[in-house]
């Protein structure tokens, strides 16, 4: 019985992790790309990595927190511009290949040994080297606080401060996207998703609108990346292709083209994975699957879940099938 309680605790603890919030922010960004604009961005982890490097390298160079945050936003914007210019006029799957390639280039450059002094090469940058400017902003006193069954430091690495900030940002960004999407701008964006040529015939500059959407989603990705590495460390390989695919899974699980879908999807995604892993760990003896293999098994299930989701319920939990356009 204890084991099940531990699984339940792990599930709830994973749902409120700051990295889960960061993941949700990146998923909201991806939702702006895919769900609302219909852009097939397969390199969201690249935006996250750009944001993570932007913040950490700027902080290590001595910039204060807010300036480093601006660097993060700027880096996300520039990366989106670089990606968008060659590809937004082409068909969807070209954008997919270019974004995934660009994300890989960022990762390869980040882990190159030539840049060891700046990016830390394949070892990355440890969190202590850039975390302090953020922790210093905490208004909380030292010590620990227990809420429900959670007992964390107030300002520590994984403490309440970063959790509250990250999840507040999730809510702020979700509301922001909601406001954007009900504005005239949002209607044009959704029009592009439905029928690009129709929007073009109304005299709208489709390219410019797509570019704006790419930048907004990309900046959200960069901020997600920044909050992903604040409680951990910058590891270029942790923000590789598979991260992008997991964000896609979370977004589709919650429901693309909805406001709260990516948020719900991210929280559920981590909880479900822990649930699978915990259940398998308890039910199947170690002789057949050891602990490490149960973790791998849970990731296999993530892949299978992604396939089944796209085939049988592409609109996810909250979505509306009519809102969804997969024919990019």
């Amino acid at each position, binding site marked *: 019985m204890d084991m099940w309680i531990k699984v339940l605790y792990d599930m709830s603890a994973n749902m409120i992790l700051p990295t889960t919030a960061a993941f949700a922010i990146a998923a909201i960004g991806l939702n702006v790309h895919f769900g609302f604009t219909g852009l097939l961005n397969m390199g969201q982890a690249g935006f996250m990595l750009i944001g993570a490097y932007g913040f950490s390298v700027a902080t290590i160079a001595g910039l204060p927190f807010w300036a480093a945050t601006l660097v993060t936003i700027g880096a996300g914007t520039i990366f989106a511009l670089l990606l968008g210019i*060659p590809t937004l006029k082409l068909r969807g799957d*070209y954008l997919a290949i270019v974004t995934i390639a660009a994300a*890989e280039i960022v990762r390869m450059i980040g882990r190159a*040994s030539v840049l060891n002094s700046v990016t830390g090469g394949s070892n990355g940058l440890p969190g202590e080297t850039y975390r302090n400017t953020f922790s210093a902003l905490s208004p909380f006193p030292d010590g620990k606080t227990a809420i429900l069954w959670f007992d964390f430091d107030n300002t520590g690495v994984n403490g309440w401060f970063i959790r509250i900030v990250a999840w507040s940002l999730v809510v702020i960004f979700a509301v922001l996207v909601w406001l954007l999407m009900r504005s005239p701008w949002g209607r044009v964006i959704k029009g592009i998703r439905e029928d690009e040529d129709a929007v073009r015939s109304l005299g709208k500059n489709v390219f410019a609108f797509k570019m704006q959407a790419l930048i907004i989603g990309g900046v959200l990705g960069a901020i997600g990346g920044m909050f992903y590495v604040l409680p951990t460390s910058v590891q270029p390989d942790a923000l590789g292709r598979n991260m992008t695919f997991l964000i896609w899974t979370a977004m589709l699980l919650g429901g693309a083209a909805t406001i709260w879908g990516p948020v719900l999807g991210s929280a559920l995604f981590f909880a479900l994975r822990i649930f699978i892993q915990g259940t398998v760990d308890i039910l199947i003896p170690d002789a057949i699957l050891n602990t490490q293999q149960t973790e791998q098994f849970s990731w296999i299930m*993530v892949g299978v879940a*992604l396939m089944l989701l796209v085939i049988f319920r592409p609109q996810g939990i909250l979505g509306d099938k009519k809102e969804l356009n997969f024919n990019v």
Partner: protein
Amino acid sequence: MVNTALARRSSPMSLRVIFGVLLGLLVLSFTLGTGAPAAHAATSDVCVADAETGCFTGTIKGVGAGVKLTIDGNGLNVPAETDKDGKWNAAVTVAGLYTITLDEKTLPEGVTLKGDAVQERDITLGFVKATIFSVDGATGDGADNGPSQAEIAAEGFNWDRLAQQIVSGLRLGLLLALASIGLSLIYGTTGLSSFSHAEQVTLGGLLGYTFANVLGLNIFLTIVIVVILTGATGYIQDAVIWKPLRKKGLSLTQMIIVTIGLALALQYTFQMFYGASTVRILMKNPETFTIGPVTLTFESLWAMGLSVIVLILVGLFLLKTRTGRATRAVSDNPSLAAASGIDVDRIIRLVWVIATALAGLSGVMLGLVLNGINWQTGMQLLLLMFAAVTLGGLGTAFGALIGSLIIGMTVELANFVVPGDFKYATALLLLIVILLVRPQGIFGRKERIG
């Protein structure tokens, strides 16, 4: 003592491999003979893996005694040192992720590390994990001075090095071509950019390891078996997944995401059964020969020869046979092909079989020439394949061939201009530039780009 160590660690290892083959293929079942202990290269005679102990081990060829390493993680910090044969090992008592750091200062003079001095490895108690550090310039017993060491050791430009790099580029290009022609054929006939094609390559390599290394079969027999089995996976995939999805009317974007889900599931399946470390298909050190300035292993030579033969056969099939012409017709215009009496579903089924079989063949040979294969070998090449296919023109088989050769050359020749870390990045940058200048590729037609 050594024997018990071998017996203890070999049986769970081989069981896992058998499990992998059984589950992964659902085709064959076989029992394991005695050839199993070959599974891992380095054997330690100090660290014994049992229920409470996991062993990290490795051999750094030709450096002799005194190279120091540290194994760090999970609250442990274990030092290790190489013996006179360059072997080292270290015991840990907690499972999990460890960072293995090689102290470069302790390498003998004139020897430099090739690749990372710091590697991360996951370990489970009761298992032995081999970690490979490759070095340049080693001279002691068993020094492994293959062509790649020589080529990387050379600094700056010279004609000899250029010749060596061109041959390496040709080799990579040919192996890439085997994989990317399939990718291109699938794209041409179904419109699908299959992200799981990379895992078909990895599957080929890992099956090659299973048959040639674990079961000890002859390498050519292994290749035949692997090609048949991977071809079968293509048949089964089309029958179970892709054809029903086409009938269901799933959009291409959805199908792409399905291939991504499949790729994820397969990657972790490989990790579950084969672990995360690199395994070698052939145990013995490759023998090399030299023509003029170029040094190659015999494996590389016949891998290149075999690729050329297979590529010519595929080309002849597409150009000269009725079915091949039908395939190109479906690529051109599926509806028109169907209207003129071609059984489009049969052609697509055939394309899946050919594509996966070629990818499997490419995987085995990559494992041979790259000195090993792991769960992400294919994934690392996927983008090069996409680059090759896009460069040649999406959906054109011959474009994929030319594109692969160009990409292979680019990757290997990039060494002259940029640091080795950037060679793949250069190829990907080339991909982006192509899309800017000529999105339809060399042989593609403009209407495809939409």
